[in-house]
């Protein structure tokens, strides 16, 4: 089965949906071949603006376009979007609640060889702390396509986290993608695995490994990190009484943090976070880094057993 990166699905979705939604405009910062916004550029050259290597200006220009009723998608790497332009996102986009979609690609360590300077592991933490911001991190091609259309229809600032590496499909069809609603992928009774983005297919693999050992896992695709779906977390925790989170992000401040906040306050159960353990990445082949940083299916399996043992 062909693996498709979520950035590729993003580029294709933009090019397709640009037809139907004439107010969509796309901005990039000299990375359109990597972010795949060049797909949109080819079809709609008059609605595409290369702002050059100026990420702060990228966000500000998108904000100005949004004040005039446009639906701007501003794309660059996750590192430069949320890092370099953090304050522009906060003050020019989120505070005035402008309808800008920050579609950031190359998130996490699976960008591989470019190394730590380009591996955003803190982007969701930064975006989560900003009021008015919605955060979506789709798992595969189809859910990315759905996420992009949902983003166009959603009014307000949104951060969409996308990956460089090809990922297997999680969804075939008929996916009910709603912003703020987690998707129950597998039902189980011993442990809940809540994952987002790249880690969703890893969580599914972990679940089948657990099954072989007689452990029944519930798997949730938490594609929306903010606002987090409290209901699905609490309902599942009530049933399994043990929760694991899995994200390709620092275990501080991202999905694990968000789920921990919900559980601690509303339904405390044992919990283990899988993710980047508050360290910077490094250069290497993506899947070697996945192994090195401990975000493989077997790491999720180990975390699940640990959570169960704490019940």
């Amino acid at each position: 089965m062909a693996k498709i990166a979520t950035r590729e699905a993003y580029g294709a979705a933009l090019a397709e949906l640009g037809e139907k939604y004439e107010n969509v405009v796309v901005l990039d910062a000299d990375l359109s071949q990597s972010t795949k916004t060049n797909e949109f550029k080819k079809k709609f050259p008059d609605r595409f603006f290369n702002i050059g290597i100026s990420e702060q200006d990228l966000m500000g220009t998108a904000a100005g376009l949004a004040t005039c009723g446009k639906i701007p998608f501003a794309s660059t790497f996750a590192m430069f979007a949320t890092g370099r332009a953090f304050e522009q996102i906060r003050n020019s986009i989120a505070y005035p609640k402008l309808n800008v979609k920050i579609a950031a690609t190359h998130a996490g360590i699976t960008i591989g060889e470019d190394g730590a300077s380009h591996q955003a592991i803190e982007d969701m933490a930064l975006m989560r702390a900003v009021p008015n911001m919605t955060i979506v991190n789709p798992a595969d091609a189809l859910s990315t396509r759905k996420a992009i259309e949902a983003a166009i229809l959603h009014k307000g600032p949104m951060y969409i986290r996308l990956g460089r590496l090809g990922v297997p499909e999680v969804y075939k069809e008929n996916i009910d993608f709603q912003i703020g609603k987690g998707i129950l992928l597998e039902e189980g009774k011993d442990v809940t695995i809540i994952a987002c983005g790249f880690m969703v297919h890893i969580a599914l693999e972990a679940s089948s490994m657990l099954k072989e050992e007689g452990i029944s896992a519930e798997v949730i695709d938490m594609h929306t990190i903010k606002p987090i779906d409290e209901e699905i977390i609490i309902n599942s925790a009530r049933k399994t009484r043990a929760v694991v989170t899995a994200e390709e992000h620092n275990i501080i401040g991202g999905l694990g943090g968000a789920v921990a906040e919900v559980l601690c306050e509303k339904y405390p159960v044992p919990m283990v976070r899988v993710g980047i353990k508050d360290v910077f990445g490094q250069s290497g082949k993506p899947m070697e880094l996945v192994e090195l940083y401990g975000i493989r299916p077997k790491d999720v399996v180990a975390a699940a057993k640990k959570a169960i043992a704490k019940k």
Partner: protein
Amino acid sequence: MDNKTLEQLKEKANIIRKDIITMLAEAKSGHPGGSLSAVEILTYLYFKEMNVDPSNPQWPDRDRFVLSKGHGAPVLYSTLAEKGYFPKEELMKLRKTGAMLQGHPDMKDTPGVDMSTGSLGQGLSASNGMALAGKIDNKNYRVYALLGDGEMQEGQVWEAAMTAAHYKLDNLTVFIDNNGLQIDGTNEDVKNVNPIEEKWKAFGWHVITIDGHDLQHIEMAVEEAKNTKGKPTAIIAKTVKGKGVSFMENQVGWHGVAPNEEQKEKALKELEVRI
């Protein structure tokens, strides 16, 4: 403009100056210096030039104004109130808990504010976005932005300057409030921003230098900007920080301190005589 119009505009500028002093004294904090230096620019734009409708602040075809130097909020608020966007009573609630008028412009809640600003260096990018939207939609509206001279030390200003020239945004006009001062001293002392004209020219802009307190100069420059095709225009307005209040003029200390009651009375008395 004819003499009558000139006199009317001068009268407006005077009212706006008095409102700035009164609202800042009432708020007991805020920025008088950079508000007073920009009075003629805003007066000209809102009372002579801009195609706006205070009863329909979101009108899509309106001209836009972005106060990139957001700490100049008092001059924007008193101009908007004088223009009829909201009642003047609001001015007396400036910076108070629960008030509409925030310390720095907030487009969500204040009618007439086209962009939220306050963090320096960001307004020109947003103005570019508005001008680009106008180009895509074939609209005739124009976009104006006002930047401080110290603000030019922000890198994003030059990112945006390059963008505006690249996209030939001739529907965009920027004013630089060139009062020579910022917070810690003169521009020269803190970090030299000169030569200003050459910088904007080198970035591909049409540049005009004027006396920023002379309404007729402002008119000529704005007309020239409107007739300049294929590139954006930067109007370097030579101004005096604190203009109109003798003890505030050219005083770096009056950047971000409000007048007390006594100073307010003194300032208002001086403003009885129109400048």
